[in-house]
Protein backbone atom coordinates (compact mmCIF):
# COMPACT_ATOMS: atom_id res chain seq x y z
CA UNK A 1 0.00 0.00 0.00
CA UNK A 2 2.96 2.29 0.61
CA UNK A 3 4.06 2.82 -2.93
CA UNK A 4 1.29 1.72 -5.19
CA UNK A 5 -0.62 4.94 -4.97
CA UNK A 6 2.25 6.91 -6.42
CA UNK A 7 3.43 4.41 -9.03
CA UNK A 8 3.28 6.11 -12.43
CA UNK A 9 0.13 5.20 -14.21
CA UNK A 10 1.25 4.87 -17.84
CA UNK A 11 -0.85 1.84 -18.52
CA UNK A 12 -4.00 3.06 -16.77
CA UNK A 13 -6.97 4.54 -18.55
CA UNK A 14 -7.91 8.10 -17.55
CA UNK A 15 -10.81 7.05 -15.34
CA UNK A 16 -8.48 4.77 -13.38
CA UNK A 17 -6.20 7.70 -12.70
CA UNK A 18 -9.12 9.88 -11.67
CA UNK A 19 -10.22 7.18 -9.26
CA UNK A 20 -6.76 7.01 -7.70
CA UNK A 21 -6.70 10.77 -7.27
CA UNK A 22 -10.11 10.61 -5.64
CA UNK A 23 -8.79 7.95 -3.27
CA UNK A 24 -5.89 10.24 -2.36
CA UNK A 25 -8.18 13.13 -1.51
CA UNK A 26 -10.61 10.92 0.35
CA UNK A 27 -7.72 9.47 2.34
CA UNK A 28 -6.61 12.82 3.71
CA UNK A 29 -10.18 13.87 4.47
CA UNK A 30 -10.79 10.67 6.46
CA UNK A 31 -7.39 10.93 8.13
CA UNK A 32 -7.96 14.49 9.34
CA UNK A 33 -11.54 13.92 10.44
CA UNK A 34 -10.48 10.81 12.34
CA UNK A 35 -7.51 12.52 13.97
CA UNK A 36 -9.66 15.40 15.17
CA UNK A 37 -12.34 13.14 16.58
CA UNK A 38 -9.68 11.03 18.29
CA UNK A 39 -8.15 14.04 19.96
CA UNK A 40 -11.43 15.73 20.81
CA UNK A 41 -12.17 13.74 24.01
CA UNK A 42 -8.72 14.56 25.37
CA UNK A 43 -9.00 18.20 24.48
CA UNK A 44 -12.43 18.29 26.11
CA UNK A 45 -11.00 16.69 29.24
CA UNK A 46 -8.10 19.11 29.66
CA UNK A 47 -10.00 22.24 28.66
CA UNK A 48 -12.88 21.38 31.00
CA UNK A 49 -10.42 20.86 33.83
CA UNK A 50 -9.60 24.56 33.92
CA UNK A 51 -13.20 25.81 33.76
CA UNK A 52 -15.42 27.08 36.53
CA UNK A 53 -19.06 25.98 36.81
CA UNK A 54 -20.34 28.95 34.82
CA UNK A 55 -18.17 27.84 31.93
CA UNK A 56 -19.35 24.23 32.21
CA UNK A 57 -23.11 24.65 32.43
CA UNK A 58 -23.55 26.72 29.33
CA UNK A 59 -24.78 26.43 25.75
CA UNK A 60 -22.94 26.47 23.35
CA UNK A 61 -19.92 24.73 24.90
CA UNK A 62 -16.80 26.79 25.59
CA UNK A 63 -13.76 25.42 23.79
CA UNK A 64 -11.30 28.05 24.93
CA UNK A 65 -12.17 28.88 28.56
CA UNK A 66 -11.22 32.37 29.59
CA UNK A 67 -10.10 32.94 32.28
CA UNK A 68 -8.58 29.55 33.05
CA UNK A 69 -8.66 28.17 36.55
CA UNK A 70 -5.42 26.26 36.78
CA UNK A 71 -5.78 25.96 40.55
CA UNK A 72 -8.46 23.32 39.85
CA UNK A 73 -5.69 20.75 39.42
CA UNK A 74 -4.25 21.48 42.84
CA UNK A 75 -7.61 21.80 44.60
CA UNK A 76 -9.10 18.70 43.02
CA UNK A 77 -6.04 16.61 43.85
CA UNK A 78 -6.14 17.70 47.48
CA UNK A 79 -9.90 17.31 47.85
CA UNK A 80 -9.40 13.59 48.51
CA UNK A 81 -6.45 11.45 49.62
CA UNK A 82 -5.02 11.16 46.12
CA UNK A 83 -1.45 11.22 47.43
CA UNK A 84 -2.13 8.13 49.50
CA UNK A 85 -3.90 6.42 46.60
CA UNK A 86 -0.95 7.19 44.33
CA UNK A 87 1.38 5.66 46.89
CA UNK A 88 -0.85 2.56 47.06
CA UNK A 89 -1.03 2.29 43.28
CA UNK A 90 2.69 2.63 42.69
CA UNK A 91 4.49 1.27 45.73
CA UNK A 92 2.08 -1.38 46.95
CA UNK A 93 0.72 -2.60 43.63
CA UNK A 94 2.45 -1.59 40.39
CA UNK A 95 6.10 -1.87 41.43
CA UNK A 96 5.94 -5.28 43.15
CA UNK A 97 3.69 -6.65 40.40
CA UNK A 98 6.13 -5.42 37.76
CA UNK A 99 9.11 -6.89 39.57
CA UNK A 100 7.35 -10.24 39.97
CA UNK A 101 6.16 -10.42 36.40
CA UNK A 102 9.52 -9.55 34.86
CA UNK A 103 11.37 -12.00 37.10
CA UNK A 104 9.03 -14.97 36.71
CA UNK A 105 8.09 -14.49 33.05
CA UNK A 106 11.70 -14.21 31.95
CA UNK A 107 12.70 -17.34 33.87
CA UNK A 108 9.87 -19.33 32.33
CA UNK A 109 10.44 -17.91 28.86
CA UNK A 110 14.10 -18.91 29.15
CA UNK A 111 13.05 -22.48 29.85
CA UNK A 112 10.83 -22.60 26.76
CA UNK A 113 13.29 -20.84 24.49
CA UNK A 114 16.75 -22.01 25.44
CA UNK A 115 16.58 -25.28 27.34
CA UNK A 116 15.81 -28.31 25.20
CA UNK A 117 13.67 -30.49 27.45
CA UNK A 118 11.19 -33.22 26.66
CA UNK A 119 7.62 -32.06 26.80
CA UNK A 120 8.38 -28.35 26.59
CA UNK A 121 6.39 -27.82 23.41
CA UNK A 122 3.35 -29.50 24.91
CA UNK A 123 3.64 -27.38 28.05
CA UNK A 124 4.15 -24.25 25.98
CA UNK A 125 0.97 -25.03 24.05
CA UNK A 126 -0.84 -25.10 27.40
CA UNK A 127 0.67 -21.72 28.28
CA UNK A 128 -0.83 -20.29 25.10
CA UNK A 129 -4.14 -22.03 25.71
CA UNK A 130 -4.49 -20.42 29.14
CA UNK A 131 -4.81 -17.07 27.41
CA UNK A 132 -8.22 -18.28 26.26
CA UNK A 133 -9.48 -19.03 29.76
CA UNK A 134 -11.72 -16.12 30.76
CA UNK A 135 -10.67 -14.37 33.97
CA UNK A 136 -14.24 -14.62 35.16
CA UNK A 137 -14.03 -18.41 35.54
CA UNK A 138 -11.20 -18.02 38.02
CA UNK A 139 -12.47 -14.98 39.85
CA UNK A 140 -15.05 -16.57 42.14
CA UNK A 141 -12.90 -19.43 43.49
CA UNK A 142 -9.85 -17.16 43.74
CA UNK A 143 -11.90 -14.79 45.84
CA UNK A 144 -12.86 -17.69 48.10
CA UNK A 145 -9.22 -18.78 48.36
CA UNK A 146 -7.91 -15.29 49.11
CA UNK A 147 -10.67 -14.76 51.63
CA UNK A 148 -9.71 -17.97 53.42
CA UNK A 149 -6.11 -16.77 53.48
CA UNK A 150 -7.25 -13.46 54.99
CA UNK A 151 -5.97 -11.55 51.95
CA UNK A 152 -9.05 -9.41 51.33
CA UNK A 153 -8.18 -5.73 51.76
CA UNK A 154 -4.51 -6.48 51.15
CA UNK A 155 -2.52 -6.16 47.95
CA UNK A 156 -1.53 -9.85 47.98
CA UNK A 157 -4.28 -11.00 45.58
CA UNK A 158 -3.02 -8.44 43.06
CA UNK A 159 0.71 -8.90 43.59
CA UNK A 160 1.38 -12.54 44.50
CA UNK A 161 0.01 -14.09 41.26
CA UNK A 162 2.39 -11.82 39.32
CA UNK A 163 5.30 -13.89 40.66
CA UNK A 164 4.03 -16.96 38.80
CA UNK A 165 4.45 -15.73 35.27
CA UNK A 166 2.08 -14.21 32.75
CA UNK A 167 1.28 -16.22 29.62
CA UNK A 168 1.27 -13.20 27.37
CA UNK A 169 4.68 -11.95 28.49
CA UNK A 170 6.16 -15.46 28.55
CA UNK A 171 5.20 -15.70 24.89
CA UNK A 172 6.65 -12.29 24.13
CA UNK A 173 9.96 -12.95 25.88
CA UNK A 174 10.27 -16.44 24.42
CA UNK A 175 10.08 -14.94 20.92
CA UNK A 176 12.87 -12.56 21.87
CA UNK A 177 15.11 -15.18 23.51
CA UNK A 178 14.70 -17.50 20.51
CA UNK A 179 16.23 -14.85 18.28
CA UNK A 180 19.47 -14.66 20.31
CA UNK A 181 22.29 -16.79 18.82
CA UNK A 182 22.63 -20.23 20.44
CA UNK A 183 26.44 -20.05 20.24
CA UNK A 184 26.43 -17.55 23.11
CA UNK A 185 25.04 -20.13 25.51
CA UNK A 186 27.11 -22.98 24.10
CA UNK A 187 30.36 -21.09 24.59
CA UNK A 188 29.44 -20.32 28.19
CA UNK A 189 28.44 -23.96 28.82
CA UNK A 190 31.80 -25.17 27.58
CA UNK A 191 33.39 -22.78 30.08
CA UNK A 192 31.37 -24.54 32.76
CA UNK A 193 28.76 -21.85 33.42
CA UNK A 194 25.54 -23.05 34.99
CA UNK A 195 22.21 -22.48 33.27
CA UNK A 196 21.22 -19.88 35.86
CA UNK A 197 24.49 -18.04 35.29
CA UNK A 198 23.97 -18.02 31.52
CA UNK A 199 20.48 -16.67 32.06
CA UNK A 200 21.56 -13.89 34.42
CA UNK A 201 24.90 -12.96 32.87
CA UNK A 202 24.31 -13.43 29.15
CA UNK A 203 20.66 -13.61 28.20
CA UNK A 204 19.17 -10.96 30.49
CA UNK A 205 21.70 -8.22 29.64
CA UNK A 206 21.04 -8.82 25.94
CA UNK A 207 17.28 -8.61 26.44
CA UNK A 208 17.00 -5.26 28.15
CA UNK A 209 14.73 -3.90 25.44
CA UNK A 210 12.26 -6.78 25.71
CA UNK A 211 12.34 -6.71 29.51
CA UNK A 212 11.63 -2.99 29.38
CA UNK A 213 8.56 -3.67 27.24
CA UNK A 214 7.30 -6.23 29.75
CA UNK A 215 7.98 -3.90 32.68
CA UNK A 216 6.30 -1.00 30.92
CA UNK A 217 3.19 -3.00 30.04
CA UNK A 218 2.87 -4.57 33.48
CA UNK A 219 3.29 -1.28 35.26
CA UNK A 220 0.73 0.36 33.03
CA UNK A 221 -1.75 -2.51 33.42
CA UNK A 222 -1.47 -2.12 37.19
CA UNK A 223 -1.79 1.65 36.96
CA UNK A 224 -4.93 1.28 34.83
CA UNK A 225 -6.39 -1.75 36.64
CA UNK A 226 -9.89 -1.28 37.97
CA UNK A 227 -11.50 -4.71 38.33
CA UNK A 228 -8.82 -6.24 40.56
CA UNK A 229 -8.86 -3.49 43.20
CA UNK A 230 -12.66 -3.29 42.92
CA UNK A 231 -13.00 -6.92 43.95
CA UNK A 232 -10.30 -7.23 46.58
CA UNK A 233 -10.00 -3.81 48.19
CA UNK A 234 -12.87 -2.02 49.90
CA UNK A 235 -11.05 -0.09 52.62
CA UNK A 236 -10.74 3.50 51.45
CA UNK A 237 -7.23 3.96 52.84
CA UNK A 238 -6.08 1.03 50.70
CA UNK A 239 -7.73 2.17 47.49
CA UNK A 240 -5.83 2.80 44.30
CA UNK A 241 -6.21 5.81 42.00
CA UNK A 242 -8.74 4.23 39.64
CA UNK A 243 -11.10 3.62 42.56
CA UNK A 244 -10.33 7.02 44.10
CA UNK A 245 -11.40 9.09 41.09
CA UNK A 246 -14.82 7.48 41.42
CA UNK A 247 -15.28 9.60 44.55
CA UNK A 248 -15.29 12.74 42.42
CA UNK A 249 -17.70 11.16 39.98
CA UNK A 250 -20.47 10.87 42.58
CA UNK A 251 -20.44 14.66 42.93
CA UNK A 252 -21.24 14.90 39.21
CA UNK A 253 -24.40 12.86 39.63
CA UNK A 254 -25.75 14.99 42.49
CA UNK A 255 -28.59 17.15 41.25
CA UNK A 256 -28.05 20.88 41.56
CA UNK A 257 -24.39 20.47 42.34
CA UNK A 258 -22.35 23.65 42.16
CA UNK A 259 -19.07 22.42 43.51
CA UNK A 260 -16.93 22.30 40.37
CA UNK A 261 -17.86 18.62 40.00
CA UNK A 262 -16.98 18.29 36.30
CA UNK A 263 -13.83 20.42 36.33
CA UNK A 264 -12.43 18.50 39.27
CA UNK A 265 -13.31 15.13 37.77
CA UNK A 266 -11.64 16.15 34.53
CA UNK A 267 -8.65 17.62 36.37
CA UNK A 268 -7.87 14.40 38.24
CA UNK A 269 -8.61 12.34 35.12
CA UNK A 270 -6.03 14.44 33.28
CA UNK A 271 -3.51 14.02 36.07
CA UNK A 272 -3.75 10.23 36.15
CA UNK A 273 -3.52 10.11 32.36
CA UNK A 274 -0.39 12.23 32.38
CA UNK A 275 2.06 9.46 33.41
CA UNK A 276 0.63 7.18 30.72
CA UNK A 277 1.01 9.96 28.20
CA UNK A 278 4.60 10.66 29.23
CA UNK A 279 5.51 6.98 29.15
CA UNK A 280 4.01 6.72 25.68
CA UNK A 281 5.70 9.90 24.52
CA UNK A 282 9.16 8.74 25.53
CA UNK A 283 8.80 5.04 24.78
CA UNK A 284 6.51 5.02 21.76
CA UNK A 285 8.67 2.52 19.93
CA UNK A 286 8.63 0.05 22.82
CA UNK A 287 4.85 0.19 22.91
CA UNK A 288 4.41 -0.31 19.19
CA UNK A 289 7.04 -3.02 18.86
CA UNK A 290 5.84 -4.88 21.92
CA UNK A 291 2.34 -5.07 20.56
CA UNK A 292 3.24 -5.90 16.98
CA UNK A 293 5.40 -8.76 18.25
CA UNK A 294 2.35 -10.42 19.78
CA UNK A 295 0.34 -10.31 16.60
CA UNK A 296 3.06 -11.88 14.51
CA UNK A 297 1.97 -15.43 14.83
CA UNK A 298 0.92 -17.01 18.02
Amino acid sequence: MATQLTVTHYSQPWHGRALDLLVQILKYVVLIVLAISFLLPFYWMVSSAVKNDAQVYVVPPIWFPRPQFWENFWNAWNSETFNLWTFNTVVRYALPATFGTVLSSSLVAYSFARIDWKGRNAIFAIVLATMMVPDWVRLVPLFVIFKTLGWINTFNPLVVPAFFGNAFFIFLLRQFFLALPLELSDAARIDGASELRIFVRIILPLSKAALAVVALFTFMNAWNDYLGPLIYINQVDKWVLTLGVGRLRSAVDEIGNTKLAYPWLMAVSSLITLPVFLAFFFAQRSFIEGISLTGLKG
Partner: protein
Amino acid sequence: MVALRRLLPATQREWRNFLLGVAFASPWIIGFLAFTIFPVGSALYYSFTRYDLVRDPVWLGMQNYIAFADDADFRLVAGNTLWWVLFSSPLGVFSAFLMALLLNSRIIFRSFFRAIFFFPAIVPVVVTAFVWIFLLNIQYGAINSTLQAWGFKTIPFISSPDLMKWSLVVIHMWSQGAAMVIFLATLQDVPKSLYEAATVDGANAFRRMWNITVPMVSPIILFNLVMSFIGGFQYFTLPWIMTQGGPSRSAEFYAIYLYRNAFQWFRMGKASALAWVLFLLILLFTYLIFRTSGRFVYYAGATR
Protein backbone atom coordinates in the same frame (compact mmCIF):
# COMPACT_ATOMS: atom_id res chain seq x y z
CA MET B 1 4.61 -48.88 27.66
CA VAL B 2 6.87 -48.22 24.69
CA ALA B 3 4.93 -45.08 23.86
CA LEU B 4 5.16 -43.94 27.43
CA ARG B 5 8.88 -44.54 27.50
CA ARG B 6 9.30 -42.34 24.45
CA LEU B 7 7.65 -39.47 26.30
CA LEU B 8 10.12 -39.70 29.16
CA PRO B 9 13.72 -38.53 29.05
CA ALA B 10 16.07 -41.43 28.26
CA THR B 11 19.70 -40.47 28.63
CA GLN B 12 21.29 -38.80 31.61
CA ARG B 13 21.73 -35.63 29.56
CA GLU B 14 18.04 -35.61 28.69
CA TRP B 15 17.14 -36.03 32.34
CA ARG B 16 19.41 -33.15 33.30
CA ASN B 17 17.81 -30.88 30.70
CA PHE B 18 14.35 -32.00 31.69
CA LEU B 19 14.89 -31.17 35.34
CA LEU B 20 16.51 -27.84 34.47
CA GLY B 21 13.70 -26.95 32.09
CA VAL B 22 11.02 -27.82 34.60
CA ALA B 23 12.88 -25.91 37.32
CA PHE B 24 13.01 -22.75 35.20
CA ALA B 25 9.39 -23.17 34.18
CA SER B 26 8.27 -24.01 37.70
CA PRO B 27 6.89 -20.56 38.56
CA TRP B 28 4.43 -20.87 35.71
CA ILE B 29 3.68 -24.55 36.40
CA ILE B 30 2.92 -23.86 40.08
CA GLY B 31 0.95 -20.75 39.18
CA PHE B 32 -0.97 -22.67 36.54
CA LEU B 33 -1.99 -25.29 39.09
CA ALA B 34 -2.76 -22.79 41.86
CA PHE B 35 -4.31 -19.93 39.92
CA THR B 36 -5.89 -21.67 36.92
CA ILE B 37 -6.48 -25.41 37.26
CA PHE B 38 -7.54 -25.33 40.89
CA PRO B 39 -9.85 -22.29 40.58
CA VAL B 40 -11.40 -23.45 37.31
CA GLY B 41 -11.94 -26.87 38.85
CA SER B 42 -13.45 -25.53 42.05
CA ALA B 43 -15.63 -23.16 40.03
CA LEU B 44 -17.05 -26.28 38.41
CA TYR B 45 -17.71 -27.75 41.85
CA TYR B 46 -19.26 -24.53 43.20
CA SER B 47 -21.45 -24.30 40.10
CA PHE B 48 -23.30 -27.40 41.36
CA THR B 49 -23.90 -25.84 44.78
CA ARG B 50 -25.51 -22.97 46.62
CA TYR B 51 -22.74 -21.07 48.37
CA ASP B 52 -22.85 -17.70 50.14
CA LEU B 53 -19.31 -17.66 51.60
CA VAL B 54 -20.72 -17.90 55.13
CA ARG B 55 -22.34 -21.30 55.30
CA ASP B 56 -20.85 -24.41 53.69
CA PRO B 57 -21.76 -25.07 50.05
CA VAL B 58 -25.01 -27.02 49.60
CA TRP B 59 -25.09 -29.53 46.74
CA LEU B 60 -27.78 -28.71 44.15
CA GLY B 61 -26.78 -30.87 41.22
CA MET B 62 -27.63 -29.28 37.89
CA GLN B 63 -30.14 -26.87 39.42
CA ASN B 64 -28.13 -23.68 38.81
CA TYR B 65 -27.80 -24.56 35.15
CA ILE B 66 -31.39 -25.68 34.68
CA ALA B 67 -32.61 -22.43 36.27
CA PHE B 68 -30.97 -20.41 33.48
CA ALA B 69 -33.51 -21.80 31.02
CA ASP B 70 -36.35 -19.68 32.38
CA ASP B 71 -34.33 -16.93 34.02
CA ALA B 72 -35.38 -13.62 32.46
CA ASP B 73 -32.25 -11.87 33.78
CA PHE B 74 -30.02 -14.48 32.21
CA ARG B 75 -31.78 -14.09 28.87
CA LEU B 76 -31.47 -10.32 29.05
CA VAL B 77 -27.75 -10.25 29.75
CA ALA B 78 -27.02 -13.06 27.30
CA GLY B 79 -28.91 -11.17 24.62
CA ASN B 80 -27.09 -7.91 25.38
CA THR B 81 -23.74 -9.69 25.31
CA LEU B 82 -24.46 -11.47 22.04
CA TRP B 83 -25.48 -8.15 20.52
CA TRP B 84 -22.29 -6.59 21.85
CA VAL B 85 -20.02 -9.32 20.48
CA LEU B 86 -21.69 -9.39 17.08
CA PHE B 87 -21.55 -5.63 16.55
CA SER B 88 -18.56 -4.38 18.49
CA SER B 89 -16.05 -7.00 17.34
CA PRO B 90 -16.45 -6.63 13.56
CA LEU B 91 -16.76 -2.84 13.83
CA GLY B 92 -13.75 -2.65 16.12
CA VAL B 93 -11.67 -4.75 13.73
CA PHE B 94 -12.91 -2.64 10.83
CA SER B 95 -11.87 0.52 12.66
CA ALA B 96 -8.41 -0.89 13.43
CA PHE B 97 -7.99 -2.06 9.83
CA LEU B 98 -9.05 1.28 8.39
CA MET B 99 -6.63 3.20 10.62
CA ALA B 100 -3.80 0.81 9.74
CA LEU B 101 -4.55 1.17 6.02
CA LEU B 102 -4.43 4.95 6.23
CA LEU B 103 -1.20 4.87 8.18
CA ASN B 104 0.39 2.39 5.81
CA SER B 105 -0.05 4.56 2.76
CA ARG B 106 2.30 7.39 1.91
CA ILE B 107 1.20 10.26 4.10
CA ILE B 108 2.82 13.17 5.85
CA PHE B 109 3.22 13.24 9.67
CA ARG B 110 2.76 9.50 9.78
CA SER B 111 4.12 8.77 13.25
CA PHE B 112 2.14 11.72 14.59
CA PHE B 113 -1.10 10.27 13.25
CA ARG B 114 -0.12 6.83 14.49
CA ALA B 115 0.40 8.18 17.99
CA ILE B 116 -3.02 9.85 17.94
CA PHE B 117 -4.77 6.69 16.80
CA PHE B 118 -2.93 4.52 19.27
CA PHE B 119 -3.09 6.55 22.45
CA PRO B 120 -6.77 5.96 23.44
CA ALA B 121 -5.95 2.25 23.77
CA ILE B 122 -3.66 2.81 26.76
CA VAL B 123 -5.62 5.43 28.67
CA PRO B 124 -6.99 4.15 32.02
CA VAL B 125 -10.52 2.84 31.45
CA VAL B 126 -11.86 4.99 34.29
CA VAL B 127 -10.64 8.07 32.47
CA THR B 128 -12.20 6.90 29.20
CA ALA B 129 -15.48 6.36 31.03
CA PHE B 130 -15.54 9.75 32.78
CA VAL B 131 -14.49 11.75 29.74
CA TRP B 132 -17.10 10.12 27.51
CA ILE B 133 -19.82 10.49 30.15
CA PHE B 134 -19.18 14.20 30.14
CA LEU B 135 -18.71 14.43 26.38
CA LEU B 136 -22.00 12.63 25.70
CA ASN B 137 -23.97 14.32 28.50
CA ILE B 138 -27.50 15.16 27.37
CA GLN B 139 -27.30 18.86 28.24
CA TYR B 140 -23.77 20.11 28.73
CA GLY B 141 -21.76 17.52 26.89
CA ALA B 142 -19.71 18.95 24.03
CA ILE B 143 -21.87 17.31 21.37
CA ASN B 144 -25.34 18.00 22.70
CA SER B 145 -24.46 21.49 23.81
CA THR B 146 -23.34 22.23 20.27
CA LEU B 147 -26.48 20.69 18.81
CA GLN B 148 -28.65 22.87 21.05
CA ALA B 149 -26.76 25.98 20.07
CA TRP B 150 -27.37 25.19 16.42
CA GLY B 151 -31.06 24.60 17.11
CA PHE B 152 -31.08 20.82 16.73
CA LYS B 153 -32.64 18.31 19.08
CA THR B 154 -30.31 16.74 21.62
CA ILE B 155 -29.39 13.07 21.33
CA PRO B 156 -29.65 10.93 24.49
CA PHE B 157 -26.43 9.00 23.82
CA ILE B 158 -26.13 7.44 27.26
CA SER B 159 -29.55 8.14 28.72
CA SER B 160 -31.54 6.18 26.15
CA PRO B 161 -31.57 2.38 26.23
CA ASP B 162 -31.68 2.36 22.42
CA LEU B 163 -28.49 4.37 22.03
CA MET B 164 -26.33 3.30 24.96
CA LYS B 165 -24.92 0.18 23.32
CA TRP B 166 -24.14 2.12 20.14
CA SER B 167 -22.32 4.76 22.17
CA LEU B 168 -20.24 1.97 23.68
CA VAL B 169 -19.50 0.67 20.19
CA VAL B 170 -18.20 4.11 19.18
CA ILE B 171 -15.95 4.26 22.25
CA HIS B 172 -14.79 0.74 21.45
CA MET B 173 -13.88 1.74 17.89
CA TRP B 174 -12.02 4.72 19.29
CA SER B 175 -9.74 2.56 21.42
CA GLN B 176 -8.50 0.02 18.89
CA GLY B 177 -4.86 1.09 18.93
CA ALA B 178 -3.47 -2.34 19.81
CA ALA B 179 -5.26 -4.15 16.97
CA MET B 180 -4.29 -1.31 14.65
CA VAL B 181 -0.61 -1.71 15.43
CA ILE B 182 -0.83 -5.44 14.77
CA PHE B 183 -2.48 -4.76 11.39
CA LEU B 184 0.12 -2.16 10.56
CA ALA B 185 2.99 -4.58 11.19
CA THR B 186 1.32 -7.10 8.89
CA LEU B 187 0.57 -4.61 6.13
CA GLN B 188 4.21 -3.62 6.04
CA ASP B 189 5.12 -7.24 5.28
CA VAL B 190 2.93 -7.52 2.18
CA PRO B 191 5.36 -7.73 -0.77
CA LYS B 192 5.39 -4.47 -2.75
CA SER B 193 5.91 -6.44 -5.97
CA LEU B 194 2.33 -7.69 -5.79
CA TYR B 195 1.00 -4.14 -5.96
CA GLU B 196 3.38 -3.14 -8.70
CA ALA B 197 2.38 -6.11 -10.82
CA ALA B 198 -1.29 -5.35 -10.27
CA THR B 199 -0.82 -1.70 -11.17
CA VAL B 200 0.92 -2.64 -14.39
CA ASP B 201 -2.04 -4.89 -15.16
CA GLY B 202 -4.30 -1.88 -14.72
CA ALA B 203 -5.88 -2.69 -11.37
CA ASN B 204 -7.22 0.40 -9.60
CA ALA B 205 -6.87 1.19 -5.92
CA PHE B 206 -10.03 -0.59 -4.89
CA ARG B 207 -9.16 -3.78 -6.78
CA ARG B 208 -5.65 -3.82 -5.33
CA MET B 209 -7.13 -3.41 -1.90
CA TRP B 210 -9.72 -6.15 -2.33
CA ASN B 211 -7.62 -8.66 -4.23
CA ILE B 212 -4.23 -8.19 -2.58
CA THR B 213 -4.37 -6.39 0.76
CA VAL B 214 -7.41 -8.10 2.24
CA PRO B 215 -6.33 -11.68 1.39
CA MET B 216 -2.77 -11.07 2.56
CA VAL B 217 -3.82 -9.82 6.00
CA SER B 218 -6.81 -12.13 6.41
CA PRO B 219 -5.05 -14.33 9.03
CA ILE B 220 -4.55 -11.24 11.17
CA ILE B 221 -8.14 -10.17 10.61
CA LEU B 222 -9.11 -13.56 12.00
CA PHE B 223 -6.65 -13.23 14.90
CA ASN B 224 -7.94 -9.79 15.87
CA LEU B 225 -11.53 -10.91 15.48
CA VAL B 226 -11.05 -13.91 17.76
CA MET B 227 -9.25 -11.84 20.40
CA SER B 228 -12.00 -9.28 20.20
CA PHE B 229 -14.71 -11.93 20.59
CA ILE B 230 -12.99 -13.35 23.66
CA GLY B 231 -12.69 -9.88 25.17
CA GLY B 232 -16.22 -8.94 24.13
CA PHE B 233 -17.79 -11.83 26.01
CA GLN B 234 -16.04 -10.56 29.15
CA TYR B 235 -16.80 -6.87 28.61
CA PHE B 236 -17.21 -5.27 32.02
CA THR B 237 -15.29 -2.23 33.16
CA LEU B 238 -16.47 0.51 30.82
CA PRO B 239 -20.26 -0.11 31.02
CA TRP B 240 -19.90 -0.77 34.74
CA ILE B 241 -18.23 2.58 35.45
CA MET B 242 -20.37 4.56 33.03
CA THR B 243 -23.88 3.44 33.99
CA GLN B 244 -23.57 0.24 36.05
CA GLY B 245 -25.38 -1.52 33.21
CA GLY B 246 -28.05 1.11 32.62
CA PRO B 247 -30.07 2.85 31.39
CA SER B 248 -32.91 0.34 31.83
CA ARG B 249 -30.34 -2.48 31.91
CA SER B 250 -29.56 -1.90 28.22
CA ALA B 251 -25.83 -2.19 28.92
CA GLU B 252 -26.06 -4.93 31.50
CA PHE B 253 -23.71 -7.44 29.98
CA TYR B 254 -22.97 -10.98 31.07
CA ALA B 255 -19.92 -10.08 33.15
CA ILE B 256 -21.82 -7.36 35.00
CA TYR B 257 -24.53 -9.83 35.94
CA LEU B 258 -21.85 -12.28 37.01
CA TYR B 259 -20.12 -9.63 39.11
CA ARG B 260 -23.40 -8.72 40.82
CA ASN B 261 -24.18 -12.36 41.63
CA ALA B 262 -20.73 -13.03 42.98
CA PHE B 263 -19.65 -9.88 44.75
CA GLN B 264 -22.83 -8.00 45.55
CA TRP B 265 -25.27 -10.81 46.29
CA PHE B 266 -22.65 -13.44 47.22
CA ARG B 267 -24.35 -16.14 45.18
CA MET B 268 -21.06 -17.87 44.50
CA GLY B 269 -22.68 -21.05 43.22
CA LYS B 270 -24.79 -19.31 40.62
CA ALA B 271 -21.90 -17.03 39.67
CA SER B 272 -19.68 -20.06 39.11
CA ALA B 273 -22.31 -21.64 36.89
CA LEU B 274 -22.51 -18.38 34.93
CA ALA B 275 -18.72 -18.37 34.61
CA TRP B 276 -18.65 -21.91 33.28
CA VAL B 277 -21.39 -21.22 30.75
CA LEU B 278 -19.35 -18.22 29.62
CA PHE B 279 -16.23 -20.36 29.31
CA LEU B 280 -18.04 -22.94 27.19
CA LEU B 281 -19.62 -20.23 25.03
CA ILE B 282 -16.20 -18.73 24.33
CA LEU B 283 -14.75 -22.13 23.46
CA LEU B 284 -17.69 -22.90 21.17
CA PHE B 285 -17.49 -19.53 19.45
CA THR B 286 -13.75 -19.80 18.89
CA TYR B 287 -14.11 -23.33 17.58
CA LEU B 288 -16.85 -22.30 15.15
CA ILE B 289 -14.82 -19.37 13.86
CA PHE B 290 -11.78 -21.51 13.20
CA ARG B 291 -13.91 -24.20 11.57
CA THR B 292 -15.55 -21.78 9.15
CA SER B 293 -12.59 -19.49 8.61
CA GLY B 294 -10.78 -21.79 6.19
CA ARG B 295 -12.94 -20.47 3.37
CA PHE B 296 -12.17 -16.82 4.07
CA VAL B 297 -8.60 -16.83 5.25
CA TYR B 298 -5.64 -17.02 2.93
CA TYR B 299 -2.45 -18.55 4.28
CA ALA B 300 0.50 -17.87 1.99
CA GLY B 301 2.24 -21.15 1.24
CA ALA B 302 -0.66 -23.34 2.34
CA THR B 303 -1.87 -25.80 -0.26
CA ARG B 304 -5.27 -26.61 1.23
